[in-house]
């Protein structure tokens, strides 16, 4: 009798113990809208149509990356449901799509929406709704502002910090330079120009000419001719790939041989240097934070091998010469890392908290030594770049890895 009772008590206590432990486990799993045991909804906005459709590749690469994650079992057993919409690079459409993602699809977060105008348009809305706007695909400096916009974070190095690196380089290597600048008349060009002028500081008078162009212009030959006539010996090209290639080619044709710096946006071997002609590209300077998919020097790099294997299996029609593919892979990998760090606490608040606690994370496609670091006061994930010079058919990195951190 007694023993029977004992047994019963024991059984009872086990049940209690079981209930309490499983209760504790339940308490650890926390979800906001968009996350469940089975899946995590991630929203995205890309210009698949319209003037910036060249960047649509980024969204396709990201979709492929999440397909790969799901095929490999998801993150902690949860599948990623990647919902991506087209905004045609129009801010009003971006607002419509962001609201659709948040209110209709009920995503956990909005990941890597592209373009400064589109992101500016949705920033206030997403912050008021407390929905993470993570790793936006633009290099404007304003995304690193955790005080005013705690739900928005950039990813790539800001245009201004990159420009400051060139300014530092010029002041050291060519203090008496006469600088001519060609820039795209939009947020990218203007932000870059500001970084350059800030970096040069008192030396800003070294800029002898600045010319802007519109993306609707068929060619920029007229600008180049004008810049050459100023007698400048240093040419900084703040241009997108097509125009960077036109400038390189035109410089070769009119035999103007200044010190030529090309912004990172256009430092692609496959989509700029090769079409512009390797013979015209020798000696061009730039800075990079990621490896170039078209550059043979990375053929045996373990990270890039993984990248090529991914392309082969999940995105075979991709053009590996396209820098956007490398970009999409790296940023998607960062996103996956953050979700992994969140563990079972998939609230929007925790997503932001984890995104702001990345320590020395290095996606496969970043240059050796470039690492992602964030903190509650530092919302600029990648801040390091390395200078490089074009030689033969590839970039040669030189100097140290430089941090372009802005002190503001």
């Amino acid at each position, binding site marked *: 009798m007694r023993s029977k009772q004992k047994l019963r008590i024991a059984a009872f206590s086990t049940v209690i113990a079981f209930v309490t432990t499983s209760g504790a486990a339940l308490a650890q799993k926390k979800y906001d809208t968009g996350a469940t045991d089975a899946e995590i909804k991630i929203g995205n906005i890309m210009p*698949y*149509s*319209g*003037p910036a*459709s060249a960047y*649509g590749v980024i*969204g*396709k690469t990201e979709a492929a990356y999440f397909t790969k994650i799901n095929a490999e079992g998801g993150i902690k057993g949860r599948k990623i449901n990647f919902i*991506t*919409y*087209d905004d*045609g*690079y*129009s*801010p*009003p*459409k971006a*607002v*419509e799509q962001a*609201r*659709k993602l*948040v*209110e*209709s699809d009920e995503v956990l977060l909005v990941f890597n929406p592209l*373009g*400064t*105008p589109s992101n*500016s*348009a949705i*920033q*206030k*809305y997403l912050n008021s709704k407390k929905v993470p706007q993570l790793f936006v695909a633009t290099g404007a400096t*304003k995304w690193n502002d955790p005080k005013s916009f705690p739900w928005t974070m950039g990813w790539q190095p800001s245009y201004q910090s990159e420009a400051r690196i060139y300014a530092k380089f010029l002041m050291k290597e060519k203090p008496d330079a006469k600088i001519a600048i060609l820039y795209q*008349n*939009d*947020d990218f060009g*203007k932000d870059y120009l500001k970084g350059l002028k800030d970096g040069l500081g008192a030396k800003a008078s070294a800029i002898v000419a600045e010319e802007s162009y*519109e993306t*609707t212009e068929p060619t920029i030959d007229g600008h180049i001719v004008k810049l050459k006539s100023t007698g400048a010996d240093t040419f900084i090209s703040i241009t997108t790939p097509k125009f960077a290639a036109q400038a390189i080619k035109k410089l070769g044709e009119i035999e103007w041989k200044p010190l030529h710096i090309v912004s990172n946006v256009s430092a692609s071997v496959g989509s700029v240097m090769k079409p512009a002609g390797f013979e015209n590209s020798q000696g061009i300077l730039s800075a990079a934070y990621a490896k170039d998919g078209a550059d043979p020097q990375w053929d045996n790099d373990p990270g890039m091998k993984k990248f090529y294997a991914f392309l082969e299996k999940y995105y075979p029609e991709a053009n590996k010469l396209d820098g956007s593919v490398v970009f999409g892979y790296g940023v998607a990998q960062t996103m996956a890392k953050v979700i992994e760090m969140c563990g079972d606490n998939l609230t929007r608040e925790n997503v932001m908290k984890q995104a702001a606690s990345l320590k020395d994370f290095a996606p496969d496609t970043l240059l050796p030594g470039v690492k992602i670091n964030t903190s509650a006061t530092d919302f600029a994930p990648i801040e390091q770049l390395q200078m490089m010079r074009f030689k033969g058919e590839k970039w040669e990195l030189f100097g140290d890895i430089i941090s372009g951190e802005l002190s503001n």
Partner: protein
Amino acid sequence: MSAVQEVVTPAAIEAVPKRAMTLGYGTSLIMLALLLLVPLFVKNFIIFQLTMLLIYGLAVLALNILTGGSGQFSLGQSAFYAVGAYTSAILMEHAGMNYALTLPVAGLICFGFGFLFGQPALRLSGVYLALATFALATAMPQLLKLGYFEHWTGGVQGLVVTKPDAPFGLPISQDMWLYYFTLVITIAIYIFSVNLLQSRSGRALMAIRDNEIAASAMGVDVALYKTLAFGVSAGITGIAGGLGAIAVQFVAPDAYTITLAISLFLGMVVGGVGWLPGSIVGSAFIIFVPNIAEGISKGLSGAVFGVLLFLVIFLVPHGARQVAIVAQQLMGKLKRN
């Protein structure tokens, strides 16, 4: 004989009898009831889309007055829309003006702008007018970016606009308030436009559209009416632009490119040139069809959109108006039986 050339010949825009320009009372009431009631039952996001539907509807209506009413063709409506949007945004953000008060200002400024633009446009017609208005549309984003105005316009970065709350502590969301606010303005402008086209001035405009020389022989002041049509059209577009800025909470040069002007033009064609109620159908087309196209294929969304557009113009070359006429005939038959 090749000297006799007219590009958009008067017959290009078919004469629409003025009674056919509006809806019957019954249909109007049903539409009104739908517009009033639907927002009560849907999510905020859909309400936002419906607000945009009304706003683009207004802009298409404005183009319809210009093209369908006076026969002048414009690819430059995005410029007027941009001026209206920036006027509202600047007045709200820099001068702290109430959002509702900025709209008449936006309308007036655009009316003046359109009226002035209408002067040189008088000498142009058809393809030439299309090019002139097209030029205006391409120039506008560049003007908005110009360094000299950057202090007010925010340059390439644009301006963020604050969304208004419902007044008098009404317990409805910002989106719903803005929807009903927009609806009231839209209905007011619609009634104004219908009356305008049915008035003496409207008859003068249509006379010009059908045959300019004949109209002038009958004593219509062609120059005045044509520029007025430009002014009224621009003014309404400006009000739509102002509303758009408030609804989207953001203005930037990239929002008002030639793509917007082309969309508005497509809206007019799909809705039926010269048929004012069609404007809302056209607006629905330019808002929802790209979403459908994208749903079918991401990589080919542009192509799918093009194919859908072809389908529509093949089936109903005269736009929604044609559907309405067919429906009316069917109804008539049913009644007789």
